[in-house]
């Protein structure tokens, strides 16, 4: 048995968060605040390191233009000022303009154009029936779902079109069903990671201790362990 501080800490963190499944409690709350503190500290460390590498180092090497993004970066902190709040919008404008420009480029080329070309080139001569069915499912699904989102928001559909709008809803339900299955796989993967740590390392020795502590906690919560006052 080699219960190092690292293993004990990791096991304590795991059980403390799982204690929320019974009820919110002070131990869970404490570890929640610890997590927020470390996360914020960590992201600050990484950002400062990134600023040092990308801006300070070239500035000190003689590239004076890098003073501009550094000044813009500090201007962001006028967010906290009441009188000069509007200065915060100037570096934000740089971020927003860059983001929008890059976003429009990517959306137009990769998503709209390339995906439409992929839809058209789904069908080839001599393809097997399974690929043909899949291709039909993709084309019918993508066109009907796109029509549903773009044309049913502003205009109320009537008659045959209204009934036909059931088809994209069915495709959306099938999509969400597949997404649900994948979300189940993802979240149980995270849980599996914790269980692999608990069962396959020396942390296995903390399991009976945790069960004992949980049991005492539950009994105390239900009132079985209170000392009666005379």
């Amino acid at each position: 048995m080699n219960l190092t501080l690292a293993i004990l800490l990791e096991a304590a963190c795991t059980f403390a968060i799982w204690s929320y499944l019974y009820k919110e409690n002070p131990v869970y709350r404490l570890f929640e605040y610890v997590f927020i503190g470390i996360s914020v500290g960590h992201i600050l460390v990484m950002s400062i390191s990134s600023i040092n590498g990308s801006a300070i180092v070239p500035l000190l090497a003689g590239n004076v233009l890098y003073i501009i993004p550094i000044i813009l970066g500090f201007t962001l902190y006028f967010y906290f000022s009441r009188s000069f709040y509007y200065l915060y919008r100037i570096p934000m404008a740089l971020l927003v303009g860059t983001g929008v420009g890059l976003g429009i480029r990517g959306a137009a080329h990769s998503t709209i154009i390339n995906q439409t070309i992929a839809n058209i080139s789904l069908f080839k001569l001599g393809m097997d029936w399974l690929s043909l069915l899949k291709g039909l499912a993709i084309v019918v699904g993508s066109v009907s779902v796109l029509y549903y989102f773009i044309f049913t928001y502003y205009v109320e559909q009537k008659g045959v079109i209204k009934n036909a709008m059931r088809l994209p809803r069915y495709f959306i339900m099938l999509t969400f069903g597949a997404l649900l299955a994948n979300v189940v796989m993802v979240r149980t993967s995270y849980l599996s990671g914790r269980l692999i740590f608990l069962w396959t390392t020396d942390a296995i020795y903390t399991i009976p201790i945790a069960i004992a502590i949980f049991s005492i906690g539950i009994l105390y919560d239900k009132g079985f362990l209170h000392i009666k006052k005379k």
Partner: protein
Amino acid sequence: MEASTLRKLIHLSFIVALSLPFIFPINIPISVNKSTQDAYNTVESIPEGSIALINFDFSTQSAPEVYPQALAFLKHAIRRHFKFVITTFESPDAVLYAKQALASVDLTGYKYGKDYVHLGYFPGKETSISAFGRDVHGLVKTDADGSSIVDMPLMQQIQSAKDISIWLIGSYNSQPFITQIYAPYNAIMISASDGSSYQSLYTYYQSKQLKGLLNGARGGAEYEGLLGYAGQAKAIMNVQNFSHVFFIGAIVIGNIIYFRRGKKQ
């Protein structure tokens, strides 16, 4: 039975069910999906000694699922004797995971600066990916430990995305790479995923913007199998057998009880 008591019983039975594979280990072989096989074949088709970019981009939250996939990419790149750079564009947590991965693999014959470089973290996701692809040295001045990259022989060979032969994206969502790197440079990219982004990324794989795609932990286990070892992803899939059977059983039993109550009323 009270709703809260029922909920707690379900949680308890769920954790017991997921602990069973550790008490009664089962080892069901995993068949390989076409998208995973395509990813493997794509890496095999790139000539040895080429330059690869391995992207580690996941938070501590999605590490159990994405880290095994990124590690498999790293091992495959070393097996193919690629020179590689490691980058992170979204989650700063992944820098430490990349260091952990480099410490866990056998780098015999690899020299830092000449054969591999860990470049570290560049915030901004799509913005930093675009900046990197356009002009690497305009964005990157130092490596992950703060050392200058100017004199590194490998970095002298990489000026832009055009100098990288293959992109191994160990990220939970590689869409920014597709929009900012594939579209302008027609780059060869294979991607990891976490299960929930697999579906949306599949359309990019189907349109051949991604040459290969791994389906979360399952894809990681498949890729590990192709490389000939059983890592964390395989261990996770052993637990998934029990969890998925539990979920399907819960849905079926829940609906049976619901319809029987409806009939009685």
